[in-house]
């Protein structure tokens, strides 16, 4: 196993070096005839380099894009925070369009489970830092622009130093903590922010802080973060590749529109004076809907906004660096502690019980897609949503407990890691199913994850 791992890493390393060499060769070839002079010795007299006219001709002839648009794109410095499902397609289109400097921030490494949607990475680069993998891909696409790989997560400590090097920021991250941090630093450093997100089959897109100081920030739109237990990532909840891809591509489009209009330049020229705020729309993408796209009209800045109100109480750069705790602000997802130790059994204990063939019921409360991938033999799927939506005492329980089971048969509940199973067990007890302790109702500690670790390592646990 170690040997395989080692070889993989070595191959990835060599491939990255090769990709870099190829990119440098391509850049040199492309630049050869345009290094200040043309082939016949005359000085180059056009505003873009010769190779730029070939590479960008198809977008330059689009109405209202033109030479001026391309010059703006070439001078722009764009930062993408996150090199995943949103960042990969966004970076590809921005690199292709010729954005002069592209920065990527990400502290994660490429995993196989990323590849169905994170189109800049590859099987050969699994294990490599995402920023390095993405830059290797992007250099192959366009070797003539500058890339900065920041192989770290954005934090309150490094945010100012990194973000201040750019004109425009794309939030391609996957958590509320980073969304509030990025919005705050963009407000404080006067950078427009293009924020997108995606989950399962839905997406959202909004242009924030544009023009800086005038447009609403993320806190104006969502002042309060969602409760931590309701924040489910793509790893657990899932994501369809083209859904997040669509949102990333739309982010790149908004960035190109903003840059071509020169919004980011106008601000530094006028310091925001006289700039009008355009109507801000929040785009909602529902991939499975009859109306897949709709835009809702947002208000401007929220009065008294913690970050962007501009009055004496608003956040300062120093406060962001020294006293902002975004993890605490968004809340920490505490492990569920609803059951007492005697109400919980281990996976080993359940295995013994199942081998004794005693009458019992094993309920698996994961969603049906998870259950369909793998489950413990004999378990019955009753998704947790059925428990949380249940109306309470006196109502029919047949949707929670399948009919043909003896009224005294013990009930064991299992889920992914052992949180939802406690919620379900507690609900059944609240409904009186345990008949004041006569009947055992409890859960399996550690869930399917523990089952895989201890009992059946072959389980294709997701």
């Amino acid at each position, binding site marked *: 196993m170690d040997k395989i791992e080692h070889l993989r890493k070595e191959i990835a390393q060599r491939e990255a070096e090769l990709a870099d060499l190829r990119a440098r060769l391509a850049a040199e070839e492309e630049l050869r005839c345009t290094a200040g002079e043309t082939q016949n010795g005359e000085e180059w007299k056009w505003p873009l380099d010769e190779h730029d006219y070939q590479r960008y001709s198809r977008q330059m002839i689009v109405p209202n894009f033109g030479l001026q648009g391309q010059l703006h794109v070439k001078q722009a410095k764009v930062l993408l925070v*996150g090199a*995943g*499902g*949103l960042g990969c397609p966004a970076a590809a289109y921005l690199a292709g369009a010729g954005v002069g400097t592209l920065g990527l921030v990400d502290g994660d490494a490429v995993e196989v489970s990323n590849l169905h949607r994170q189109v800049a990475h590859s099987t050969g680069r699994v294990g490599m830092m995402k920023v390095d993998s993405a830059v290797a891909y992007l250099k192959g696409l366009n070797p003539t622009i500058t890339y900065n790989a920041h192989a770290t997560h954005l934090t309150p400590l490094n945010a100012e130093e990194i973000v201040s090097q750019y004109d425009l920021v794309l939030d*391609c*991250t*996957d*958590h*509320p903590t980073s*969304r509030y941090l990025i919005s705050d630093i963009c407000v404080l450093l006067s950078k427009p922010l293009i924020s*997108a*997100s*995606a*989950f399962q*089959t*839905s*997406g*959202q897109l909004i242009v924030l802080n544009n023009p800086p100081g005038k447009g609403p920030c993320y806190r104006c*739109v*969502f002042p*309060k*973060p*969602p*409760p931590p*237990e*309701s*924040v*489910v*990532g*793509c790893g657990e*909840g899932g*994501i369809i590749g083209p859904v*997040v891809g669509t*949102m*990333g591509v739309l982010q790149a489009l908004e960035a190109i529109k903003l840059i071509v209009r020169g919004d980011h330049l106008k601000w530094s020229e006028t310091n925001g004076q006289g700039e009008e705020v355009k109507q801000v729309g*929040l785009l*909602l993408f*529902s991939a*499975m*809907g*009859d*109306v*897949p796209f*709709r*835009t*809702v*009209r*947002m*208000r401007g800045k929220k009065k008294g906004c913690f970050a962007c109100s501009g009055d004496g109480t608003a956040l300062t750069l120093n406060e962001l660096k020294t006293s902002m705790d975004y993890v605490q602000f968004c809340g920490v997802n505490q492990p569920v502690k609803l059951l007492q130790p005697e109400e919980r059994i281990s996976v080993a204990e359940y295995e013994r019980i199942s081998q004794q063939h005693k009458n019992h019921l094993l309920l698996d409360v994961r969603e049906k897609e998870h259950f369909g991938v793998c489950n413990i033999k004999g378990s019955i799927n009753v998704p947790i*949503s059925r428990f*949380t*939506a249940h109306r309470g005492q006196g109502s029919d329980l047949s949707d929670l407990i399948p009919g043909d089971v003896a009224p005294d048969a013990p009930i064991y509940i299992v889920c992914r890691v052992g949180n939802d199973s406690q919620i379900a067990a507690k609900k059944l007890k609240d409904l009186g199913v345990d008949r004041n302790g006569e009947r055992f109702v409890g859960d399996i500690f550690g869930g399917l994850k523990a089952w895989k670790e201890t009992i059946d390592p072959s389980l294709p646990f997701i």
Partner: protein
Amino acid sequence: MTSSAPKSPPGHFSLLYFASASSFTGKDYESLSAPISIGKLFSELESRYPGMQAKILDSCLVTVNLDYVDIPTEGEEGLVIQEGDEVAIIPPVSSG
């Protein structure tokens, strides 16, 4: 999620649920009686879907006929939704 709801019947408005609001209620949309204030709508939703206030409504944004509306502070009623309106409950999507 189906974001196009059929036209609401007379005396009703249609309510669209996006992202986690849709998974919490198990619905993409439904019709409720109008007129009703935003404040009353939130209480109605909490009684239909226990826990929805804390899990969804406290951190969502609300639009009426595609326009953002302010969520009333406690004790206030807020804007009154009229018959035929289209109201959307839009929680933030954070992942990507």
